[in-house]
């Protein structure tokens, strides 16, 4: 089985490549990159005018399967991924049951392999049941395919438990993904604390609720020498904490979401719960800091925190609506918008979506090197389109960008040499 992708602009940051080249794929692997490859008996895909990148990687999603299949499942979630140009994703363990045991890990991986449209790399929980009391069996979970550990959605409140989690995960060479949030400071808040929350009469969540735990966990990473990955940084302070920690040589990485670099808490005016997520939309100053962190390399990856919720869980009073928004199908155009706005160049954008998250997850994806698995995304960077929530592939339609005009999308998504999405 041979495929020749012809005349595209190949952007592969792992190999510092940005060049018009042909790519030959044989039996699901990258066989050759060169100018003017003779197609021979290969199927030819004309990619003139398109950007060719390694299949995109979203290191933070919620597939809701098992347990919450009415919101999303592995089939629909990976369909949404493919439609967004994403070929690999990591999924958080806050399913029901929690992914704290080998049976759940194997279920996720097997279902994804048999019925999915993307590679799924599960993240196991740090503690059993995500209740913060007993460590999960990380060694066995890692053997079973988990690429990291997190109690995402909930912080590990107990400092010693977080310390032991870092030490124990480090034994097996995998990172801890922290959801940094001091619940006592959140104190029932439902949006960012500040003038907009005051105006709307909604209880605010102060930035310190995020930064205090980010600081603690960075210090624990420093103490233990373990790899800490900070999920969804949303505040100026957290970006600065990570920047300073990296400068000191602490093993810390972090990610940011498109909604945190595109939107401020002003979007909550109108009380639309599709602007309610955790961490919440922050101030313009925070948005600017996240963008600066992406530009200077403090932030290692752009991840969606794709969090599908049923309309019944969103179509309620703001204060009682569930947290989270879907993001897989808007990840790419929102990242490209930062290229247009000159926050970073195209190569940096693609690195944030491919080789950098791959390195954190320790997976052999995110590059177009010869011999690599042929996960490839073909992008039309200039196509304008409008987000229509009802037309999203995800089962849930809780996007913050309904009706918004986007520029750029994946026109073809190739998973191990096989086209899984095409438009």
């Amino acid at each position: 089985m041979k495929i020749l992708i012809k005349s595209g602009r190949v952007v592969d940051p792992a190999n510092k490549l940005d060049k018009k080249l042909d790519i030959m794929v044989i039996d699901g692997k990258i066989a050759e990159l060169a100018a003017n490859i003779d197609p021979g008996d290969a199927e030819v895909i004309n990619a003139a005018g398109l950007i060719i990148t390694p299949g995109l990687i979203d290191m933070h999603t919620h597939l809701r399967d098992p347990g919450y299949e009415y919101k999303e499942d592995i089939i629909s979630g990976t369909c949404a991924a493919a439609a967004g140009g994403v070929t690999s994703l990591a999924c958080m363990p806050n399913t029901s049951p929690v992914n704290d045991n080998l049976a759940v890990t194997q279920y996720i991986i097997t279902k994804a392999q048999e019925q999915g449209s993307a590679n799924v790399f599960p993240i196991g929980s740090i503690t059993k049941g995500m209740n913060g009391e007993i460590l999960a069996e990380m060694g066995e979970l890692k053997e079973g395919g988990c690429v990291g550990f997190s109690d995402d959605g909930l912080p590990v409140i107990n400092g010693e438990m977080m310390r032991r989690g870092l030490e124990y995960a480090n034994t097996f060479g995998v990172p801890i993904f922290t959801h940094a949030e001091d619940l006592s400071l959140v104190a029932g808040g439902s949006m960012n604390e500040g003038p907009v929350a005051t105006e709307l009469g909604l209880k605010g969540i102060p930035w310190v609720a995020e930064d205090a735990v980010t600081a603690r966990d960075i210090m624990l990473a420093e103490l233990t020498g373990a790899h800490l990955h900070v999920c969804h940084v949303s505040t100026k302070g957290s970006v600065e904490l990570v920047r300073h920690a990296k400068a000191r040589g602490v093993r810390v990485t972090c990610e940011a979401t498109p909604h945190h670099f595109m939107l401020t808490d002003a979007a909550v005016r109108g009380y639309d719960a599709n602007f309610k997520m955790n961490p919440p939309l922050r101030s313009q100053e925070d948005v600017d800091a996240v963008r600066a962190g992406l530009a200077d390399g403090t932030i290692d990856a752009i991840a969606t925190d794709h969090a599908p919720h049923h309309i019944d869980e969103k179509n309620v009073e703001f204060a009682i609506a569930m947290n989270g928004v879907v993001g897989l199908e808007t990840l790419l155009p929102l990242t490209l918008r930062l290229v247009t706005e000159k926050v970073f160049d195209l190569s940096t954008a693609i690195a944030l979506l491919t080789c950098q998250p791959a390195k954190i997850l320790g997976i052999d994806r995110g590059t177009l090197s010869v011999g690599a698995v042929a996960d490839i995304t073909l992008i039309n960077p200039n196509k304008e389109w409008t987000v229509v929530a009802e037309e999203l592939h995800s089962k849930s339609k809780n996007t913050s960008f309904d009706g918004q005009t986007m520029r750029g999308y994946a026109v073809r998504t190739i998973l191990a040499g096989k086209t899984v999405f095409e438009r």
Partner: protein
Amino acid sequence: MSFNPKHILGIKDLSAEEINFILDTADSFKEINTRQIKKVPTLRGKTVVNLFFEASTRTRTSFEIAGKRLSADTVNISASSSSVVKGETLEDTAKNIQAMHPDIIVMRHSASGSCQYLADRLDCSVINAGDGMHEHPSQALLDAFTIREHKGSVEGLTVAIIGDITHSRVVRSDIYCLAKLGARVRLAGPGTMLPPGIEKLGCEVFNNLEDAIRDADVVMMLRIQRERQGAPLIPSVREYARFFGLNGNKMELAKEDAIVMHPGPINRGVELGSIIADGPQNVILNQVENGVAVRMALLYLVAGGEKLQENC
């Protein structure tokens, strides 16, 4: 000018001209309340549902009387917040009521934004009778009406509002309303009860009562909810009363002819000493009296205003 809004959700989006129009309309209704026969046929055939998810005596009674004096059919529903626990959503509750074709729903609800939520989803008019910590427009309008009645005009006055600013929907509506009408609004309260960015709504913030009420024309005291005692916000009602209660001779700091207001219900001896609560400067019962006229004006204008009379 004519002003017939579909909904009254808050003061924020009203202009000074529209606020004055509402107050002028209330002026013309006030006299009805002192007649022998306190009823006019203006809203005959209109149905007003008072949908209250939170306990209320004053506001609900005031809206009910306002509706009845205009000959509307008024229905009161005290839906406990536990209807959420029972499983019916706010939207479903509201749509069930709408199926009975009311013209206006007057709603009080503990969730900020809930009146906006209703207005976005229903065909009938919605009047906000207090949503969470967001707005309480009819209270602000009756406050402005009362100030205007006692002082001639709101413009140029200094109004001090003292208390738990964070949790008060009255404050937010009052700041918008009084600032739009040209007053200087000052706030004071303990730091735990002053939300960040409140000054952006159009007011000055003080951290002691004395500075806030010095030379004020109007002193408005907010109810301190006793359940906040011991929570992280205040150590005790006793200490609160000492520093933020209007008592003793503190009123001497305000202008000699200053008036004292309170949205009720008052906690005697806490935010308001009885000597002041019953003293000559208090206009608290005028506020209650004017509330009926202001709510008659709101019901009338939302129902169609002058267009109604043409049909009579």
